[in-house]
């Protein structure tokens, strides 16, 4: 019984039925939208400051105390720019692409549980909904690359399709591991079933899911679609003004959304000892995001064929074997103490990682090491 459903029941006693149906929906949507927009703005500031501190410098600190008005200034600057459409590009596709990239990000937040019962809709196919919606952005990026009439954008668009499609599979298989242990697809059930967080119970699944979603978000080390040094901003090379703002917000929105999903699925959501649940949720989301920024600060990016071989030859077989192991445990050892499962899973994870690292031949056979 989510909070909004309780609100709807109470309202049904006071107002007519159609009002009691619409008003909680609108209230819920506004709250979620406010959370997303404010969080994205705070994340932009947080990432720039944190990246600066990793790099022995301060981040932006001129506008407002310690720079918290910097994202607003960025937004104002982007809005005031002239909107340029390439003359020979496909105008309708060019206009539609940012919308298709940005809107699915907002849709994902409909099933993120902020605390017990604070979820917009408690779909009983929650996690499948998330996977389905997040793949729509791929089409948007490809449209952006095609409509720009620019060879750099086209290269980026084709790389995108390859990358996003190939990383969907390990992500979905890692999710299936979680679903098997929970027994249900609904997000609130997944959080409720985590007395021990699934990151500890299924370490290999956690690592696969984490790397897969970093690739889905197009962030370093997998950010070759907008590789600043090679293809000069990739698919949004011909975008300026509000459309670029949509891409920009969409990227940070993706980061926020996937951080929330990782927290929900693997780090036991809003559960925690002392503080109110919403604070635990925010702490975990910010911790996951910090690790993602940390990876961005340190690692160079992969080349596109290495990326694809990492997905198909590395992550996918490990994900399938992980799924078999979890299925075997759920089937034959359902009532056993959790720490035994933790130990078995850790052993399997280490063995598999060691085995698959043998696959990584330095130099591709052309040089001796």
């Amino acid at each position: 019984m989510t909070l909004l459903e309780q609100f709807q029941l109470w309202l049904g006693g006071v107002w007519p039925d159609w009002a009691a149906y619409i008003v909680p929906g609108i209230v819920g949507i506004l709250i979620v939208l406010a959370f997303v927009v404010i969080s994205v703005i705070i994340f932009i500031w947080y990432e720039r400051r944190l990246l600066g501190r990793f790099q022995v410098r301060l981040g932006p600190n001129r506008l407002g105390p310690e720079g918290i008005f910097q994202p607003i200034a960025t937004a104002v600057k982007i809005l005031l720019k002239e909107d340029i459409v390439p003359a020979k590009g496909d105008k309708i596709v060019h206009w539609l692409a940012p919308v298709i990239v940005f809107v699915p990000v907002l849709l994902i937040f409909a099933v993120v549980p902020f605390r017990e019962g604070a979820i917009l809709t408690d779909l009983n196919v929650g996690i499948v909904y998330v996977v389905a919606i997040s793949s729509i952005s791929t089409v948007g990026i490809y449209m952006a690359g095609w409509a720009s009439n620019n060879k750099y954008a086209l290269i980026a668009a084709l790389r995108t399709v390859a990358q996003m499609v190939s990383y969907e599979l390990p992500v979905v298989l890692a999710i299936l591991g979680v679903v098997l242990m929970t027994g249900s697809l609904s997000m609130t059930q997944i959080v409720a079933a985590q007395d021990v967080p699934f990151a500890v119970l299924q370490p290999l699944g956690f690592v696969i899911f984490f790397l897969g979603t970093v690739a889905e978000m197009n962030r370093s080390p997998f950010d070759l679609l907008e590789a600043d040094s090679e293809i000069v901003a990739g698919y949004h090379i011909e975008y300026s003004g509000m459309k670029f703002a949509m891409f920009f917000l969409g990227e940070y929105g993706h980061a926020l959304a996937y951080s929330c999903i990782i927290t929900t699925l693997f780090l036991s959501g809003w559960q925690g000892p002392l503080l109110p649940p919403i604070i635990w949720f925010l702490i975990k989301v910010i911790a996951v995001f910090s690790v993602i920024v940390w990876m961005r600060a340190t690692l160079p990016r992969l080349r596109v064929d290495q990326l694809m071989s990492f997905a198909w030859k590395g992550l996918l077989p490990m994900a399938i074997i992980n799924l078999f192991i979890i299925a075997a445990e759920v089937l034959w050892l359902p009532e056993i103490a959790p720490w035994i499962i933790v130990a078995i899973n850790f052993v399997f994870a280490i063995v598999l990682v060691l085995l698959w690292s043998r696959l990584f031949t330095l130099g591709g056979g052309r040089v001796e090491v």
Partner: protein
Amino acid sequence: MKFERYGIGIAKGMALTFKHLFRSPITVQYPEQKLEVSRRIRGNELVWFVERCTGCATCAKACPQGNIEIVTHVGDKNNYVVDKFEIDTGRCMFCGLCVEACPYDALAMGRSYERAQYRRRDVILNKEQLQVSDVRQPSGYARPRIEATLPKQNLLVYWDKKEGGQKLSWLGLSKKRGRGV
């Protein structure tokens, strides 16, 4: 050469980046904090001592670009009187060859590096604008006597506040907040 596997190389790199979170950032909040420049800085200006100049034009001959224009006439004490002494600091590359060439120590480099002007003709400095004054101080480049009177430079190689170090703070909170311009 032995190479690490299994992601340990990446882990070591990430550990180093994490360690840098605890080091002071080396940012200097210009324009509120300005570092002490070197005693021999070849700043973006030239300083002329009118009482020492004899109008010999050795500096004009030493300049690789021909930036210095000197017009003199013969005075009554068997000397040259300088009518016009103009330096085009827009074309000047501040190499210091004119300062080294002057036999009477009448020309010196300046210490300031914030000499931008709004109009191009404002950077051509004539006789009155070039002279030494409170805002145009000479630097010690090729002038050891002036160099001995100037304060020493702030150096980053001394991390913290020992003699001549840049003051670094970990939190990086600015005490004064200027307009940033």
